[in-house]
């Protein structure tokens, strides 16, 4: 294990080499797997206070510390820290960069040990279950048998769901935010638009761009622009931008006349600085392949039945049309049918899917109550 740095005494970040090969759902085996991770807070003496926070599609391990690429203070600083919902004075928070990612974990931009060249498209297709499998191995190598909680929003929630299916005896509680038990046709369709944009960029070079020293930035930016629309609600876009123009009058051309165009272009441009195009292909594929019930013969309740002893907190957001409340209700129904201890609230918000990343007081109040009660029951 390489500990790269310790920005504060109770924070660490590093990269850990899994001490065994990773057998993937596809049947392929990854021999050498690195997982980049951050930790916050301190592991208690009986190793019972660890919380795994799983990130969304374009997130990373920097949940509450400065991201070295963007210089920003993590993607969830409002929720993670001393005295916050995920209280680093009480819990030992672990966050990893997912398998297939591009922030230090093994992914398509990593060097293939067999060839000495970047994997590119020779990287095996991975799944949400493969990501969770790598995390479980990392947690074991950190010397932790059972997590107090596995939490995540969006794709992070899918990893948490997969944990509940595959490792229910290694977790006490599970937090699922703005997530779904499977990808819908609409979800897959939007991802396909993004992938086609990347693959249509001449600089993608059949996925071999890293070896050839170019980057499919235009394609990746378009993919991000399309996806970003799905993270926001129509009313929020309207309120923020309406039909406001960038400058006085129309250009009578194809410059970014409207503020919303300029905003999306900025989102696309900023994204290519921090994300790898092939990682985007692989991770969106993993999302599209996700269907938790499939592993249990198509019945979600059977997939979740082993998790009957886990405490669940499921939160959805009223204006989220990417993973709408109806998807969370499917999860909650299955949990009830499985006899699990489930709590569920739909939070009123007009901020769309990304509401879970923001400071939503009702989300915080609900999670504070849930975690505090679970922590007390767990003796933390």
């Amino acid at each position: 294990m390489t500990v790269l740095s310790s920005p504060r005494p109770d924070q660490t970040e590093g990269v850990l080499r899994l001490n065994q090969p990773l057998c993937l759902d596809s049947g392929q085996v990854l021999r050498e797997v690195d997982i980049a991770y951050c930790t916050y807070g301190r592991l208690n003496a009986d190793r019972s206070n660890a919380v795994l926070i799983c990130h969304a599609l374009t997130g990373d391990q920097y949940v509450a510390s400065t991201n070295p690429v963007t210089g920003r203070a993590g993607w969830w600083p409002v929720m993670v820290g001393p005295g916050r919902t995920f209280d680093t004075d009480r819990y030992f928070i672990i966050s990893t960069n997912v398998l297939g990612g591009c922030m230090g974990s093994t992914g398509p931009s990593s060097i293939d040990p067999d060839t000495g060249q970047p994997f590119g498209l020779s990287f095996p297709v991975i799944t949400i279950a493969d990501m969770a499998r790598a995390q479980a191995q990392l947690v074991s190598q950190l010397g932790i048998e059972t997590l107090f909680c596995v939490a995540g929003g969006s794709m992070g929630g899918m990893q948490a769901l997969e944990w509940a299916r595959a490792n229910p005896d290694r977790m006490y509680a599970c937090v699922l935010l703005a997530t779904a038990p499977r990808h819908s046709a609409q979800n897959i369709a939007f991802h396909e638009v993004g992938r086609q944009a990347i693959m249509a960029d001449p600089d993608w070079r059949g996925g071999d761009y890293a070896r050839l020293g170019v980057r499919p930035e235009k394609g990746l930016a378009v993919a991000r622009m399309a996806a970003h629309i799905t993270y926001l609600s129509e009313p929020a876009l309207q309120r923020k931008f309406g039909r406001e123009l960038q400058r006085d009058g129309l250009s009578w051309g194809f410059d970014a006349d409207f503020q919303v165009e300029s905003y999306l272009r900025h989102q696309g441009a900023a994204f290519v600085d921090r994300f790898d195009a092939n990682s985007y292909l692989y991770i969106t594929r993993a999302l599209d392949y996700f269907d938790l019930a499939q592993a249990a013969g198509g019945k979600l309740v059977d997939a979740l039945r082993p998790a009957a002893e886990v405490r669940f907190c499921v939160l959805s957001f009223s204006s989220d049309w990417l993973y709408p409340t109806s998807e969370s209700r499917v999860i909650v129904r299955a949990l009830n049918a499985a006899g699990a201890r489930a709590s569920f609230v739909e939070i009123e918000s007009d901020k769309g899917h990304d509401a879970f990343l923001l400071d939503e007081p009702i989300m915080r109040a609900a999670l504070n109550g849930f975690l505090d009660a679970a922590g007390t029951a767990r003796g933390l």
Partner: protein
Amino acid sequence: MGNGRQMGQPLYAADREDFREIVRLVRPGARVLDVGCGSGELLQLLRDEKQIDGRGIEIGAEGVSACLAKGLAVIQGDADRDLAEYPPMSFDYAILSQTLQAVRAPKEVLSNLLRLAERAIVSFPNFGHWRVRMSLLTTGRMPDTRSLPIPWYETPNIHLCTLRDFTELCAELNLRIEASSAVSPTHPARSIDCQSPLENWRSESALFLLSRKSAATAVTHRPGDLFA
């Protein structure tokens, strides 16, 4: 359905006496589902006094949030839509406190309660109470009483019934009435003969402990048909 205890005006004002009687009836350590649990006062009371393993269903987000803050396991949902998903006999008691009159399909809800739990505890304002009868008789308008203080155009109570109506429904559904009592905001609960016409005049609100007479004659319920 069941947001009455969550915000502002209660569906019915006798909650406290109601709760005391429910706490008395519930066996220690039981598995309990409180349907329309508001901000969780009853579940908390049952947890503290009877060490129950409790779950709740509540329609309002603020109520659910308040429940979570109390450490209760509660889902946002409603009695009409969300009971069918629970497996049979997953609870010892299902509680429907002052909520039956506010559900869309009381008969289905009642059937469902006794499908998912061995016993149901159901309380409701008695529309046969003398104050209600007098109010209608003397004013010719929808009753405005201390137990039903909300005007007809605003009330969530869409399926009001009398003690007699309810006991007849129990008979139709083949339910055994194990106990019945009258509750009011001002007096402790008292055990009643629920068949007595006099009690139908006297009882401001009624509370029943119900079970199925026998599994063989139980009303079968297809899971999921409330979603159809």
